């Protein structure tokens, strides 16, 4: 592919806007990580769908399942926060609405992600009721 960037800009690695490169890379790296994790999740949902509460508790009790589940949740919530952020930035043009929605997006992803991960860890460490 032809590159239009100067050697200096390439060395700095910041692009025309001088920031946002880390965000752009973060979106892609999380996408790469989610390819195997989400495919595993489809299999996990099918397995868990066929089982009851005791099965799910035993399943989460296995270190590999708990670890992959926590990684899946953490990276998914990171990725979807980044994705919806771009959607909000593209379509919402009233400054106050935009700021409010960006904060809401962050808080929803942060809260739901933290609750989900804590719940998985509680069952993984403490077992079922």
């Amino acid at each position, binding site marked *: 592919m032809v590159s239009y960037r100067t050697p200096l800009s390439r060395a700095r690695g910041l692009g025309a806007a001088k920031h946002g490169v880390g965000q752009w890379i973060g979106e892609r790296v999380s996408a790469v990580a989610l390819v195997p994790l989400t495919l595993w999740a489809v299999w996990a949902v099918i397995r868990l769908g066929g089982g009851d509460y005791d099965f*799910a508790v035993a399943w989460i009790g296995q270190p590999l399942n708990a670890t992959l589940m926590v990684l899946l*949740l953490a990276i998914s919530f990171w990725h979807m926060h980044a994705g919806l952020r771009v959607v909000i930035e593209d379509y919402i043009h009233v400054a106050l609405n935009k700021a409010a929605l960006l904060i809401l997006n962050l808080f929803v992803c942060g809260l739901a992600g933290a609750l989900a991960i804590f719940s998985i860890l509680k069952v993984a460490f403490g077992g079922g009721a």
Partner: protein
Amino acid sequence: MSDAAKAPRERPMSPHLSVWRWHVTMATSIAHRATGVALYVGALIAAGWAIALAKGPEAYAGYQALLGSPVGLLVMFGLTLSFFYHLANGIRHLVWDAGHGFDLKSANASGAFVFIFAGVASVAAWVVAFMIGAV
């Protein structure tokens, strides 16, 4: 002050969606966003599942019944379609980011493939789920 000065003036509009013919690459782009938003809701449903599991057997059974209801299954199938679409089109985007397949012919072909893949993979996943007895 004249009336024209008070009212917001009619501004020239840029060519809007309605003047464009639908084409594959446009549809894949819009669908990528739409499925991304759908999966956002799906992740919240997954978080609800984890919370119900931590809460106990009754909450978990209730949540499973909700997901297993006709509406729940419909939502789950929609999420399956959204997932396989977003997965395949996401990989398509990663290939583009690496500098490949961006010419019109390849982009149209990969776009059509992504739609077909999403349908086939979703049906396959549900066939497996039925065979295992998950549904």
